[in-house]
């Protein structure tokens, strides 16, 4: 049972992130919701790499032990880099929106008449 706790944490993170995106009105809270979903998926990728009694997948040159899988670590690293790029883009768009409209409420932007 103790080995199922990370999976429960993943589902909890994804559901809380989805709740924040759908029901909150402040733009910064929507951005935080996307980050929560992304952290949940990264945690899921790393949890898949674990084997019981394993150590980090680095060669020491002294004997051999059971090592956890190295491929999901590379996938998680790529996903974190993509997350940083998306976050930088979203925050610069939020700065532009605030400078143009003066408010961060999602129901009041983008509705003016031309």
């Amino acid at each position: 049972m103790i080995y199922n706790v990370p999976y429960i944490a993943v589902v909890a993170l994804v559901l809380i992130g989805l709740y924040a995106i759908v029901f909150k009105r402040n733009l910064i809270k929507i951005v935080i919701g996307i980050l929560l979903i992304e952290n949940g998926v990264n945690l899921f990728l790393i949890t898949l790499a674990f084997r019981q009694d394993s150590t980090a997948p680095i060669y020491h040159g002294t004997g051999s032990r059971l090592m956890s899988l190295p491929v999901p670590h590379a996938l998680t690293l790529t996903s974190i880099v993509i997350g940083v790029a998306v976050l930088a883009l979203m925050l610069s768009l939020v700065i532009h929106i605030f400078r143009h409209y003066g408010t961060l409420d999602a129901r009041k932007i983008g509705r003016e008449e031309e």
Partner: protein
Amino acid sequence: MIGMSKIVRTITSAVFPFVMIYGLYVIAHGHLTPGGGFQGGAVVASSLAMILVAYGSVWVVGRIKEKHLSILESLGAIGFIGLGFLGIILVLFYSSYEGSFFKNFLIGQNTIPIFNEIGKGLSNINTAGVLPLMNFAVGLKVIAGLFVIVLVMAYATRVKEGK
């Protein structure tokens, strides 16, 4: 963004070289220990962000132009893709060469004596072929890219004097 007090500025100037050397160490040993291009680049960029917070964005923008950083970023990216293309183009120089894109052409050969051994263990940095060169290219791009993002955001949202 206004800078901080004199104590903060002095300690930042003292700590800044150590953090940068640690970041460059992480980039350079990416094929032996955990680390590599993005992780080391993020450490160096955070040390540059520390300078930005301590001295204020107006001071830093007066000394570092954004277009020089943009050129550095392009050079890093071109280096990375160029190393990938060299896997195909080397067939023009060595006629018995069969390659594909991103092939590791430096490992296990003796004509170019850089990074060409195969070994196990943390003490042999002369291994793993093209990977350390790609780590340097990616590290350069990440340093320039992350620092430019933080610098432009800080400069664009500064509070004007007298407000």
